[in-house]
């Protein structure tokens, strides 16, 4: 019986995992870099160990040090969360070699699905459609211009290790091609130390739809429905929902079946996600498989009632799946807004700083997974995701109004966040009608911006008065005493103004 899990992560996902551990009566071991000594996941953990200085490469990515902590603490299982080491083969292998339990899929599945060429071939062999394109990386002997002409513009240039917007470029005209390949290559080298580049057909206005998979180590595999993740900027998801307002029950069942086929072809076990692009004609193409728990997993949890982290732990322990496909039912609608520390109205510029004040949303249907604390500093060392706000409603319209209400209650003082942007998306007619694809944000951002500046007129006086009241209540100037005759009040004020 396992009674201690080391969570090799930080922020909201570390807390998410620890919550389930607590519910299962499992003790938790947290790890932290020196920047995270007072981070909420460390306050929550039963045990906590420092693993290095702030840069992730010297702490949260330090395999040897994390394994040392596992030994020191007596942890028997390791949960990697998402990001960091969650899809790292060396890490998974080292854990297994030490006789510990890796809460993740088999190493073979991570390796095969992590390599775009192998993943694509596996999908083709399993009868899952793929996007037209070059099936191997570009070589020095290739003429990318000729290849792209054959595929037809627009083409997508992407790095082998790429994902989450990194190492990917859309090329719409031939004159940009060489430059964009170089840009993708330079990002790929600095981010993944792998310079292999692929070219494929770029689908216009597609939907990003992904299927949640649950598989045990005894050959059972089921699908927990889809997540519509088309609200993105530079391939980074911002809002996800389930069910998708785009696909119907028939297509849902077909894609779920294909996702299960692929998972079984690769011998998958654990939770995983098969991502598809679905074009406006409802053609679907395999994009990639994520061999880990995903950021947006809560929307699936909310409509299925299944705790995916609990399932991960049980599968890792060797248990048989608790559910069969026919026992999976979907209830209502769930939407997630990712709360990034970025200015959504200013090119998504990252924001760092101290959280001065926090008002968290609550109430009916609201779930907030976060790693926030007043006084805690948001540093530039890690991912800018502060948390995720998830709202469940009996209908899509109900979930949208619930999300709008919850966002309007949510105040994080001291940082720029994308809360105001998410709020305007909830008010957007196209979004409310479910009429959107992956181009939504680029198309709508201009309208959203102008909407922002027209709404302010009525509140201008309140802003002005508030500033003056703050000034009046905090800047009580010291009275000039009789001992200060030598100084002219005029001169003092003049100097003060000049000093500002």
């Amino acid at each position, binding site marked *: 019986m396992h009674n201690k899990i080391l969570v090799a992560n930080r922020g909201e996902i570390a807390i998410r995992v620890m919550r389930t551990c607590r519910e299962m009566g499992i003790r938790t071991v947290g790890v932290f870099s020196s920047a995270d000594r007072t981070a909420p996941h460390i306050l929550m953990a039963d045990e906590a160990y420092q693993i290095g200085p702030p840069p992730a490469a010297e702490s949260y990515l330090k395999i040897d040090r994390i394994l040392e902590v596992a030994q020191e603490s007596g942890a028997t299982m390791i949960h990697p969360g998402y990001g960091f080491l969650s899809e790292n083969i060396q890490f998974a292998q080292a854990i297994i070699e030490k006789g510990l339990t890796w809460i993740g899929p088999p190493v073979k599945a991570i390796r095969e699905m992590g390599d775009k060429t192998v993943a694509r071939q596996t999908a083709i062999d399993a009868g899952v459609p793929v996007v037209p394109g070059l099936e191997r990386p570009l070589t020095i002997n290739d003429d990318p211009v000729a290849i792209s002409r054959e595929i037809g513009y627009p083409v997508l240039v992407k790095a082998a290790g790429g994902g989450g917007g990194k190492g990917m470029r859309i090329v719409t005209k031939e004159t940009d091609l060489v430059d964009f390949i170089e840009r993708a290559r330079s990002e790929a080298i600095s981010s993944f130390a792998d310079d292999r580049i692929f070219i494929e057909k770029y689908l216009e206005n597609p939907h990003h739809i992904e299927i949640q998979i649950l598989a045990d180590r005894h050959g059972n595999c089921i699908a927990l429905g889809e997540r519509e993740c088309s609200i993105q900027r530079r391939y980074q998801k911002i809002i996800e929902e389930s069910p998708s307002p785009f696909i119907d029950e028939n297509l849902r069942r077909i894609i779920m079946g294909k996702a299960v086929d692929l998972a079984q072809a690769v011998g998958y076990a654990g939770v995983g996600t098969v991502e598809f692009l679905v074009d406006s004609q409802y053609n679907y193409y395999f994009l990639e498989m994520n061999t880990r728990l995903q950021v947006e997993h809560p929307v699936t949890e909310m409509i299925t009632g299944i705790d995916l982290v609990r399932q991960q732990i049980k599968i890792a322990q060797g248990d048989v799946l608790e559910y069969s496909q026919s026992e999976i039912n979907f209830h209502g609608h769930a939407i997630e807004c990712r709360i990034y520390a970025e200015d959504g109205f200013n090119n998504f510029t990252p924001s760092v700083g101290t959280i001065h004040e926090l008002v968290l949303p609550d109430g009916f249907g609201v779930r907030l997974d976060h790693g926030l604390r007043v006084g805690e500093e948001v540093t530039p060392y890690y991912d800018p995701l502060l948390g995720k706000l998830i709202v469940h409603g009996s209908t899509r319209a109900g979930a949208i109004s619930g999300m709008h209400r919850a966002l309007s209650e949510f105040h994080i003082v001291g940082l720029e966040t994308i809360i105001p942007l998410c709020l305007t998306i909830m008010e957007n007619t196209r979004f409310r009608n479910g009429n959107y694809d992956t181009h939504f944000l680029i198309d709508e951002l201009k309208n959203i911006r102008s909407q922002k500046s027209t709404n302010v007129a009525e509140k201008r006086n*309140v802003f002005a008065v508030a500033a003056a009241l703050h000034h009046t209540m905090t800047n009580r100037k010291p009275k000039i005493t009789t001992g200060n005759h030598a100084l002219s009040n005029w001169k003092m004020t003049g100097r003060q*103004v000049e000093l500002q």
Partner: protein
Amino acid sequence: MKFQATVDDQTIDFSVETQTQGFSVQINDSTLTIDCIRLSPYSYSLIINGRSYYLSLTNKNGGYRITLDQQSFCVQLKDETQILLGKFGLNKTIADTTQNIISPIPGLVRQVFVKSGDKIEKNDKLLILEAMKMENEIVSTVSGVVSEVYVKPGSSKNKGDPLLRIEGD
């Protein structure tokens, strides 16, 4: 006490009197009675004519950044003395249009698109700054002429470091 506030490029003149309970504000020929409670160093509750406002406030660029109903604006405030000094031409905030483009994040400069002497428009691409493994485009916040470039590809910059200097239009 007279005040002049600039919100979103608009100037508003008004006066505030402290009363035994709350404040009395003269604005646009009307008088408002305001119940104002400071909730924390960064937030206030105002009740104006029965309407309740929850605001947060932080210092920014010599003024205040105020958020209300998820809308944030920078407010530049002048009190009576500063308004008076402004009338005598001692107002330096209006005279100085030169602006440094400041690094919003710590990062590594990957590419620089402009050079000294270039005429640029607001929202023009200036450079690419890599941070958190993402390449971020830094765009100009003003229109004008680039007078100095402080960085080159490969420069590592901290948050708040000047990247370039622009003589505003």
